[in-house]
């Protein structure tokens, strides 16, 4: 065991590995999650996000490494872990032929909620999920956002100190996503540790801390702001203009510009140094008689950071 039960960390992971045959799904990943924080796991599909989470929930056994959840070792104390976590998978995993109440009752039974608390917990889940009028509806007929909230409620019935959410908002409309994240904030405010995977960059901004995973490896970790400062070697300029395609051609020949990409009605330009590059760019635009409305250094978005990290990884790997 790495840490004791009353440590400040809810999850500790050290050199965790998972191989499926010759495929290295997760490669020596290490990180720690503090109690009560919203910890985001960010990465493209197939990067190893879900595999890591499933190892922590006891669904799959790691190939090598060490990990604890709430102080329990994933190799030897999987059963204790299961009493202290809630898990919600990206696929709806309640019973569609059972009603809202029947699903809640079922998980109350599985988690052995005492009789005296049962009704309270059920009411809490129904209220939290906003399903008061649908207590007796089959879950099959509920829209996606409501199902997700019900699934979250069922995973929280036993008041677990740590909760794992695997892409909880995939396939859910933006308004439901918003309200789902409000729920997550409430949980964190109550001291629950929330471990969430996502590939939505805007959702990643809501997290207290983020780990970026790519091709099974942890490539960056920190608060969203730390990531933007620490892992961005370049400055990012925002260029707004009437003819973005013309501007793209104009700046493509400039050696100071490391990367140029269309972004909304303008361009995002990655440069080594903003102050020295801006005059060069202005000159190039004027030569082509292109009109621009704005050119300024901006704080990079997480997407900029992530793209930058991935490109430096791929180029160093010779891809």
């Amino acid at each position: 065991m790495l840490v004791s039960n009353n440590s400040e960390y809810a999850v500790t992971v050290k050199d965790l590995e998972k191989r499926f045959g010759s495929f290295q799904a997760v490669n020596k990943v290490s990180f720690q999650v503090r109690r009560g924080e919203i910890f985001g796991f960010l990465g493209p599909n197939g990067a190893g996000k879900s595999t890591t989470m499933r190892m922590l929930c006891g669904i799959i056994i790691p190939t090598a490494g060490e990990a604890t959840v709430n102080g329990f070792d994933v190799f030897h104390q999987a059963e204790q872990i299961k009493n202290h976590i809630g898990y919600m998978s990206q696929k709806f995993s309640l019973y569609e032929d059972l009603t809202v109440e029947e699903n809640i009752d079922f998980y109350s039974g599985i988690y052995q909620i005492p009789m005296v608390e049962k009704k309270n917990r059920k009411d809490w889940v129904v209220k939290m999920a906003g399903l008061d009028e649908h207590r007796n509806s089959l879950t099959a007929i509920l829209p996606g956002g409501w199902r997700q909230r019900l699934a979250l409620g069922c995973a929280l019935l036993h008041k677990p100190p740590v909760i794992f959410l695997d892409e909880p908002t995939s396939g859910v409309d933006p308004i439901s996503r918003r309200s789902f994240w409000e729920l997550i904030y409430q949980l964190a405010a109550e001291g629950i540790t929330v471990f969430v995977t996502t590939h939505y960059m805007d959702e990643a901004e809501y997290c207290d801390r983020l780990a970026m995973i790519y091709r099974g490896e942890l490539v960056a970790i920190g608060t969203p702001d730390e990531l933007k400062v620490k892992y961005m070697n370049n400055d990012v300029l925002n260029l707004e203009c009437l003819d973005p395609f013309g501007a793209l051609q104009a700046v493509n020949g400039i050696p100071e510009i490391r990367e140029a990409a269309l972004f909304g009605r303008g361009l995002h330009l990655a440069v080594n140094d903003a102050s020295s590059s801006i005059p060069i760019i202005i000159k190039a635009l004027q030569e082509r008689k292109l009109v621009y409305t704005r050119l300024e250094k901006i704080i990079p978005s997480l997407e900029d950071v992530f793209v930058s990290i991935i490109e430096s990884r791929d180029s160093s790997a010779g891809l």
Partner: protein
Amino acid sequence: MNMYRVIAIIRKEFIHILRDPRSLGMAIAMPILLIFLFGSSLSLDVDHVPLVVWDQNGTHESREFIGRFTASRYFDLNGHVTSYAEIEEAIDKREAILALVIPREFSRKLESGRKADVQLIADGSDANTATIAIGYAQMVADGYTSSLLLKAADQQGAKRVKIPVEVQPRVWFNQNMLAKNYIIPGLIAVIMMVISALLTSLTIAREWENGTMEQLITTPLTPSELIVGKLTPYFAIGMLDVVLAVLMGQYLFEVPLRGNTALVFGMAALFLPGALTMGMLISIMTRSQLLASQLAMVLTFLPSFLLSGFMYSIANMPIVIQGLTYLVPSRFFIVILKNIYLKGAGFAIILTEAGILLLFAVVLIVVANIKLKKRLV
């Protein structure tokens, strides 16, 4: 094992079953249909053998001889013919399985005390029926012969002559040798094996296919709780099926149940857990509903029909196949049911078979438990 969690699973499974009336209907209608179909069509009795006669002799004696055949319940006289060509035609058209040819000199030879031959032609394309039918014909002819001998001795004024040795057959347990009396108890065992495995073959695979198994894995639920919780409602359905099957045997097929009815249900309760777990084990191994149900059908239906002693006598099988039959649980359930039904046997007689059924159930549940645990990772 935590009863609180087992009860949660049982309640959930009952809701699944009740919300799916088609499957529930199948679970109840299928055994009824199968027992009805097999029970009415599977008859191994040979009687009412169609017979044609070519009586070349045409005398009082020859007609008396033919009368012995028509009086027996084993033969139906389907007409007289006057040539071998007609005999052949009758057999071809399946109007006759046996043909009796009585030669011209039949009565003359009898009167002069010489041996009178008659010819019996049988349709060998169904060798089994032909053999049995020839046996019946032999029996009828023997009866006629001994009555002639007795009459002759009487006329010669001898003291009352008696046949030196006479076999007095008594068939115990099934006096009228009705096939249904031993087919129906065996059929109940075979059908219950198939239905039980089919019922449970979907349960675990469905959880995998719907992604609900992954959720269950992250809860404190243990494999044994899941297995026991899922077996219970299907056990109830299985027992209901047995009750229906026994009622059908009683009132539809009128098979006598000489033993204790409670013992029948007690033995069914011992047989069902193993049979149900077999289906569940298949479900655990395949994780696919389609594959699991097909495998369950093949793996229970064929051995139960062919290797259980239901259709073919185990004693006549090659020694290797005989060894295989010990792995077919329905073999032992069939012995139990036949003993209770036909012999009115008590528990002491079927103790060994009951023990083997229990062993089957325990071994299968343990294996399913281990396999489910391994499958979770």
